[in-house]
């Protein structure tokens, strides 16, 4: 078989360099995927947080022993809830407004309170879950204030307590954490890219110095400079491509495997934080 000039100048350590590039590209793929995943989760979370509002209603009568009816709140609070629902559903920005059932509320609160018994001994407020229309999500903060005002104005009983929850401010620490992870992952990608570039430069220089003798012989036997440069460049490019493609494929397969595993896992973003 005819040996090309690139084969003459091929590097026996090329596989090591290709492997190194492969590992770095693999790590870069994983880190980049993490960036995209965390970014996507944060965005979806933000979007979901912006789209949902929890409104907590309670009246002084809820604290009275035995005041709770079948639905867990006093008749007075139940009436207020009904009025609030009507008001909320009349708002053009509101897509859906439903009162959370006491059972659902109990499930959400249990991990914070600790035991079912403790939950049973304490009065639970009435909570309305409001889902905003997509076009209203950007004005969620303003809308929250407007709903609070509307609810308070609609109240005859001045003792009503209206709490609106679920806004960005409430979830800010978690979001900041997500954004921090995203920035960290981007930094990892940048560091990996810099390491990759440095490794390739270093490996190429080492290869050049190792081939110095062969290059000189080729020169003296009549090889032209461009041919030698092309051969060396082709060799480096081939090594980088082999390593890069291998790292990319392995990274992709790894992500695919994780995707398969994650597909079976129960995952649902929720803003139902107490």
């Amino acid at each position, binding site marked *: 078989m*005819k*040996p090309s*000039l690139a*084969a*003459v100048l*091929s590097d*026996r350590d090329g596989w090591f360099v290709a492997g190194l590039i492969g590992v770095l590209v693999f790590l870069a793929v994983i880190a980049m995927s993490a960036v995209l995943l965390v970014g996507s989760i944060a965005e979806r979370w933000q979007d979901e947080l912006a789209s949902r509002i929890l409104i907590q209603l309670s009246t002084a009568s809820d604290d009275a022993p035995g005041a709770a009816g079948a639905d867990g709140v006093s008749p007075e609070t139940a009436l207020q809830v009904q009025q609030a629902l009507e008001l909320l559903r009349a708002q053009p920005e509101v897509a859906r407004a439903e009162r959370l059932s006491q059972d659902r509320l109990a499930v959400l609160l249990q991990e914070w309170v600790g035991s079912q018994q403790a939950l049973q001994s304490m009065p639970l407020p009435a909570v309305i879950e409001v889902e905003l229309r997509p076009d209203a999500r950007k004005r969620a903060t303003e809308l929250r204030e407007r709903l609070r005002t509307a609810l308070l104005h609609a109240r005859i009983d001045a003792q009503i307590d209206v709490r609106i929850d679920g806004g960005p401010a409430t979830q800010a620490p978690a979001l900041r954490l997500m954004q921090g992870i995203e920035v960290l992952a981007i930094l990892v990608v940048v560091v990996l890219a810099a390491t990759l570039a440095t490794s390739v430069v270093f490996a190429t220089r080492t290869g050049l110095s190792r081939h110095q*003798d*062969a290059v*000189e*012989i*080729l*020169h*003296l*036997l*009549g*090889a*032209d*400079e461009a*041919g030698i440069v092309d051969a060396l460049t082709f060799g480096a490019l081939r090594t980088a491509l082999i390593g890069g493609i291998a790292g990319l494929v392995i990274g992709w397969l790894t992500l695919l495997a994780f995707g398969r595993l994650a597909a079976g896992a129960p995952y649902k973003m929720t803003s139902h934080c107490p």
Partner: protein
Amino acid sequence: MSRLVQSEPVARFEQVGLRYRSGPEILRDVTLTLPAGSFHFLLGPCGAGKTSLLRVLYLALRPSRGRFSLFGQDVAAAPRAELVPLRRRIGIVFQDFRLLPQLSVQDNIALPLRLGGRDEEAIRSDVAPMLLRTGLTGLAHAFPPELSGGQQQLAAIARALIVRPRLLIADEPTASVDEPLALRLIHLFQELNRLGTTVLIATHNERLASGFNHPRLRMEAGRIVQEGTVPVDSPPNVRPPVGSSTSVQEALP
């Protein structure tokens, strides 16, 4: 047997000096002309400057001073690109062989042809006789590290001869071989010389050189101290050994 001695010298050194960086001068005021078709031995002790002179001649180094022309072209200040076609007209036998270890013997021999852009069929038809001529046919697919010093020397010589060079430069080509093979190699160079190639052989083996009627250049301390005691066109006084049946003309492309 006719010798081809042309009027245009193949190489001409005029007051050439060479130093490596800021070190002392290795070549001093070398003035020398190699006529086309000539055959010279270059003699001198180790460190006399023989290899440095050859390195200038085969365009691995440029003189630090003086004028040096090759094939009629002043190469002291020529652009690098202009040196490539000149190098393709030179056959070099390095003192340390300098075969590429990752190539087989036949690929090493074929390398100058491939660098010159010859097609593969022509290369195959040229390499086979050369392998036969140098006795390397059975080692065609072997790699240099698997060969003895003498076999590597033969492969290096075959690589130099394969392009049928206009100038053959050999640096201690007989250093790694025994006396009979050394004589065979010199006869090989002589046959090539008869076909018109200018030959310059550097050796410290004065006994070997004295067995041939070729001019001897002597170097000492970087200077040519003795030049051309035998006429260029004198016939050699040593006959080719029995067994060298394939002529260079047959072996060369």
